[in-house]
């Protein structure tokens, strides 16, 4: 099958837009050639997702000159300028996949269940655990009120607790929850817990729910086995959730491989690229309603979704979570609090509007920084090693902060950050996207920053499940836009003190040498395709990844923005203080270093 795929058409049916791309094999390589888009038609008055897909195809046909449709049928296989070899799709329309998970212990099986659901592309509405301190009737009320698309029940290692798991099953049974879509159908429940409790769980739930039993996702304390549960979630997503969404039955009959939830597909792509390049990657997709964060560290994949952090529908929630003062601090001009609050709420109620004034653009970029920062913090808190595993520890480790000790996200080992979503991909200047990502993720050491040019990661994610070569080729050549490498301090010190010397040697032999004070930031020309050797010699108390005072020498590749040396210290400190310049002036200087905004 792999050899027959020369022309591929892929769509992502998002909650507002259906995006179609055409991928063609030109000579020996796969390239993304055309794209079309159209409003998604899941809601009334159309209530048929295929209308939007056909409209997006029509735009593709117009642009590419390739005839894809014969009436409402996709022409396969491709011959000359007619037809395609396969059609594939992802979907997040209608609110995506909303799940509730339950497990015996909050930080063990319940957390593993949460990871399985998130990894499959779901939004986790709540995590119920035997030890979550809620009273039984509160848990039951919560299960009944939430109306998820499905529930994932886990708990107990194989041979471990039975009673706690059965108790959770009893709560679910008593709540008698109803699915979000299709009033008369039974709610799908997946049981992926202690195999010795299967019969009893089944006795409690089989008549009240559409129960599926799969392998335990935490068979031992030392091991997670999330694959089977994830697979079952995606199967049920198609069988139950998608099948009840308007027009999806028809759409499913068109696709060559099963439709995947959009974030699940993006996760596939992240894993494929981390594996191929043998690197650690963090990806983020900041949308209107939600922000997804993906990470692959030492081949361990994690995904989180911050369901209420976004740039339009959820923009107001970013303010509610971070506080208006954290937005205002990023603005290099004064603004009245009432005014900025009204502007943000107006964006929320009219989510499709775009900033026309430069001031409005800067406000949106300030909000994006906080949304990204909060989403990444939530990701770090969930992307942790397995709890309950016995470890040997040094006495000195006892005093380290727990969160830092457990998260798998080691900023110093991070090689690549990929950003996508309107505010990053469509920022008028690429340097704005780079600044937002550096400010919110605060990379340490040497990290490449990139953006997804037109948000085609979902399409490529599904493609990677059938043809990984094609997917990674297109990802590198057409999907990613490398903004440039960022070299950063990993610690901080006295503001204004000299913190590092640098020597940049370009491949043509040109050299730039200078030093930076703590709080400064510089951007150097280093175009895409160019390389340079960077030598950083930190002062005695400063660290750029190799230890205090230790020099680093790295060869780095360029990008459309250039090479950034960030000597602002970590964590980034935006306070005004004695002996410091006013914050607005500092921000303006940083903006100027990036040439981020017009004068």
């Amino acid at each position: 099958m792999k050899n027959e795929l020369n022309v591929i058409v892929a769509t992502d049916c998002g909650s507002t837009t259906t995006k179609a791309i055409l991928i063609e094999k030109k000579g020996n390589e796969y390239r993304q050639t055309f794209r079309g888009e159209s409003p998604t038609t899941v809601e009334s008055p159309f209530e048929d997702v295929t209308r939007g897909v056909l409209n997006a195809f029509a735009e593709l046909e117009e642009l590419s000159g390739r005839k894809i449709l014969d009436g409402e049928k996709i022409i396969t296989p491709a011959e000359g300028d007619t037809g395609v070899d396969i059609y594939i799709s992802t979907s997040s329309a209608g609110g995506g996949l909303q799940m509730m998970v339950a497990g015996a212990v909050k930080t063990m099986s319940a957390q593993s269940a949460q990871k399985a659901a998130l990894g499959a592309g779901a939004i986790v509405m709540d995590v119920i655990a035997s030890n979550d301190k809620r009273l039984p009737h509160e848990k039951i009320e919560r299960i009944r009120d939430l109306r998820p698309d499905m529930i994932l029940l886990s708990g107990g290692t194989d041979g471990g607790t039975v009673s706690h798991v059965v108790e959770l099953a009893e709560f679910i049974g008593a709540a008698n929850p109803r699915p979000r879509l299709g009033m008369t159908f039974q709610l799908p429940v997946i049981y992926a817990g202690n195999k010795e409790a299967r019969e009893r769980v089944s006795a409690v739930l089989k008549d009240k729910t559409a129960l599926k039993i799969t392998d335990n996702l935490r068979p031992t304390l030392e091991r997670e086995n999330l694959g089977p549960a994830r697979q079952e979630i995606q199967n049920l997503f198609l069988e139950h959730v998608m099948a009840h969404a308007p027009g999806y039955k028809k759409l499913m009959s068109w696709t060559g491989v099963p439709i995947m939830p959009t974030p699940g597909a993006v996760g596939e792509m992240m894993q494929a690229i981390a594996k191929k390049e043998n690197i650690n990657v963090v990806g983020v997709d900041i949308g209107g309603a939600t922000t997804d964060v993906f990470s692959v560290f030492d081949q361990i994949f994690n995904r989180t979704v911050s369901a209420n952090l976004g740039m339009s529908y959820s923009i107001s929630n970013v303010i509610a979570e971070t506080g208006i003062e954290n937005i205002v601090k990023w603005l290099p001009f004064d603004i009245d609090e009432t005014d900025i609050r009204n502007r943000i709420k107006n964006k929320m109620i009219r989510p499709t509007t775009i900033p026309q004034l430069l001031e409005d653009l800067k406000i949106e970029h300030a909000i994006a920084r906080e949304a990204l920062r909060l989403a990444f913090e939530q990701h770090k808190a969930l992307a942790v090693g397995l709890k309950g595993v016995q470890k040997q520890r040094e006495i000195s480790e006892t005093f380290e902060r727990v969160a830092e000790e457990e998260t798998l996200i080691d900023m110093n080992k991070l090689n690549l950050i990929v950003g996508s979503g309107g505010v990053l991909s469509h920022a008028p200047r690429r340097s704005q996207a780079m600044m937002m990502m550096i400010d919110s993720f605060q990379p340490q050491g040497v990290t490449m920053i990139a953006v997804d040019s037109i948000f085609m990661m979902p399409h490529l994610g599904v493609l990677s499940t059938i043809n990984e070569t094609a997917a990674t080729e297109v990802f590198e050549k057409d999907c990613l836009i490398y903004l440039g490498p960022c070299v950063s301090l990993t610690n901080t010190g006295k503001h204004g003190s000299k913190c590092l010397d640098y020597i940049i040697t370009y491949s043509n032999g040109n050299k730039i040498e200078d030093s930076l004070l703590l709080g400064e930031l510089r951007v150097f020309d280093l175009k895409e395709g160019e390389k340079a050797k960077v030598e950083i010699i930190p002062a005695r108390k400063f660290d750029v990844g190799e230890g205090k005072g230790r020099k680093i020498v790295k060869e780095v590749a360029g990008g459309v923005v250039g090479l950034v040396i960030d000597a602002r210290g970590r964590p980034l400190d935006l306070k005004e203080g004695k002996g410091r310049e006013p914050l607005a002036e500092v921000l303006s200087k940083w903006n100027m270093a990036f040439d981020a905004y017009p004068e």
Partner: protein
Amino acid sequence: MTHAYTPGLRLAEKIQIRKSRNLPLPGDVIVKKGDIVKSGDIVAKTNLPGRVHSVNVVNRLAILPGELRKYMLKKEGESVQKDEIIAETRPFIKMFKSICLSPITGNIESISDITGQVLLREPPKPVQVSAYIDGRVVETIEKEGVVIESNATFIQGIFGIGGETTGELQIVVDSPEGIIKPEDLQETHKDKIIVCGSIIGFDAIKKALDIGVKGIVVGGIRDKDVNELLGYDLGVAITGSEDINITLIITEGFGQISMAQKTFDILKHREGSIASINGATQIRAGVVRPEIIIPYNKEYADKASEMIAETEPPRNEESVGISIGDPIRIIRNPNFGKIGKVKTLPSELRTIETEAKARVLEVEFSDGQTAVVPRANVEAIET
């Protein structure tokens, strides 16, 4: 983006409107097709299952889960009274007897000999669905609900808080630009739905609440006043279930913005009629906007429906787009809230102040001045 226009909010002085009135769970529909109903009439009812309570009986009695049924005095499905004994041990010496009492009045839902817990359920809670608008029942869906049809004025707001309510419509300002002050509100406004102009402050809302005003329709409101009213910062635009004893609908946006002249004129024209309003707003998938429905009385309604049959456009037409000469409203800074006519529709992308390339249109205001605005930042005014 290929789609640029925000479809305008619906605004119709006379329209045939249908409202589905559905039960949250299957139940009984108590009206028939063809019945004439008033807004407060009950059209369907059901019982919501009662709350579930759990009692870990084996812990209380210090017995094993497997023995639980032996000690239970009640079986699954049986009714119990609060503080009634549901299980007890039977030791030789009576003073060692342990008992377990029911924490509620209700039924025994389940007895688990694995976990040792007994689930009890409170009696079902009756739920009734009212007609919400005056009109005629045109469809009944067995066990689920009804559809009510009415000839009415229909106006959508942009954002609201608070749920369904009904009351007499009263205009309390002279013009769409007017600002209502607390002292303008009197006892006579009790149970009314008041229409204000460009903005209402928290002090006036507070006075309205004290008097017992049922609803407020206004052009704009400050976000901080909404916070004060709710007691928290509204994060996500999913509203309608706030417990605030008043329903608030804004027609234009946040800040001080005059109510659109046409909206104001229509409301003024219908002053004194009974309006049904709902602040429920949901801006994510499946957009729900707040609504003002003012049914006509029967004789007028029959006449009106004939008129509507001829003039009502098909539903799908509303998002077709905008042509030169069409009236539009600007919905983002600068010129937020201003109304004008489309002068030109250049097809090529233009660079705007932010340096973004966007599809734009040129708008001409009533004073002859013009401005270039991204198409995404205007909405069609429904005519």
